[in-house]
């Protein structure tokens, strides 16, 4: 009987992962393993630390709330190694339309256009500056530094 109990304890210790039961009825080490995975999106704070000129431009327009990687994609690798990993140039005819193509289900106040009628296939950045999209007249246009004052 004692040998059976001992065998059970030894076998259990060998078979059941050591961290099983640490937090509950699961392998506690799994939490740390999942948390240790690398990230793909760096986060806008990381982008803004270097690209301050773009931040200044964005502050002047409605795209100030749009995070960098919403358009530019995942760039954690670029943030880790800016010299050798460079983001691809965006096709604004595709990227802008994702948000601004007219759709009855979009909020009524959200700026939207039927791109085929609006631009006739031209890339959006032919007329709009993506970081500061409103087309301004000369009088409205102020340098970023002046407008901040």
């Amino acid at each position, binding site marked *: *009987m*004692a*040998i059976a*109990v*001992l065998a059970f*304890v*030894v076998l*259990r*210790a060998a078979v*059941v*992962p*050591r*961290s*099983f*039961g*640490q*937090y*509950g*009825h*699961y*392998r*506690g*080490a*799994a*939490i*740390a*393993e*999942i*948390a*240790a*995975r*690398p*990230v*793909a*999106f760096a*986060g*806008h704070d990381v982008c803004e630390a270097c690209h301050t000129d773009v931040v200044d431009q964005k502050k002047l327009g409605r795209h100030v*709330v*749009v*995070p960098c*990687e*919403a358009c530019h*994609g*995942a760039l954690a690798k670029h943030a880790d190694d800016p010299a050798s990993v460079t983001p691809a140039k965006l096709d604004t005819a595709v990227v802008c*339309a*994702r*948000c601004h*193509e*007219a*759709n*009855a*289900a*979009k*909020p009524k106040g*959200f700026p939207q256009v*039927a791109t085929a009628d609006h631009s006739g296939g031209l890339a959006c950045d032919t007329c709009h500056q993506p970081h500061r999209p409103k087309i301004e007249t000369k009088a409205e246009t102020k340098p970023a530094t002046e407008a901040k004052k």
Partner: protein
Amino acid sequence: MDITRRRLLMLLPAAAVAWKYVQAGTPEASPNYKLTEHWWSMLIDIPKCIGCGSCVRACAEENDVPEGYYRTWIERYHVADWKIERPEVESPDGGKQGFPPHPDDGGKNFFVPKLCNQCADSPCTQVCPVGATFVTPDGVVLVDKNYCLGCRYCVQACPYGCRFINPKTNTAEKCSLCYHRITKGLTTACCEVCPTGARQLADLKNPKDPIHEFLRTHTVQVLKPHMATGAKVFYNGMDGSVR
């Protein structure tokens, strides 16, 4: 061998030591992140969602989600005035590439992002026979890929249809609330790229989190409240037709 009272008393301390060894495991918590100081949830502000699909694409890239499967997806609802009980719901490719133009022919049209509701009393964790899926002390439902058998019980148990079997690993998969990001002080990939702020990660244990003010001043709902799952993904401005 007969077990006498004396022998039993001699064996018990050894058994106790062995049991402690089994249970102790190796503490691997990050020194900068305390599991017990957080209780994660998410806020979805439906009137802000433009159905651009950024969240779906970001989720797929961040979490290596196979093509044709979704940890998060967007549904477009069309609720005709006379058919409120039977809304038309579509989600082409999970809304990954946005939605084709839809004519405004009356009724209500809106987008609803969906994801794992991170239930506090989750049915999926209760049915797992091996303890491969669980609620962490900080309120996130996770899947231990190294322990999952792929039995699909959890896929059937989830009332929200948030789980699938990953064809590469043959294990259950679902939104992990980007656990590898939030434990590093980042927000989830879907919240990071949302251009309108329709998705907000929230920590219910953080008294300074704006979620508390939002919950106090808005009428928010959870999906399928009658299931009593303790869902922690809160929806603002949700139409009664949403299921």
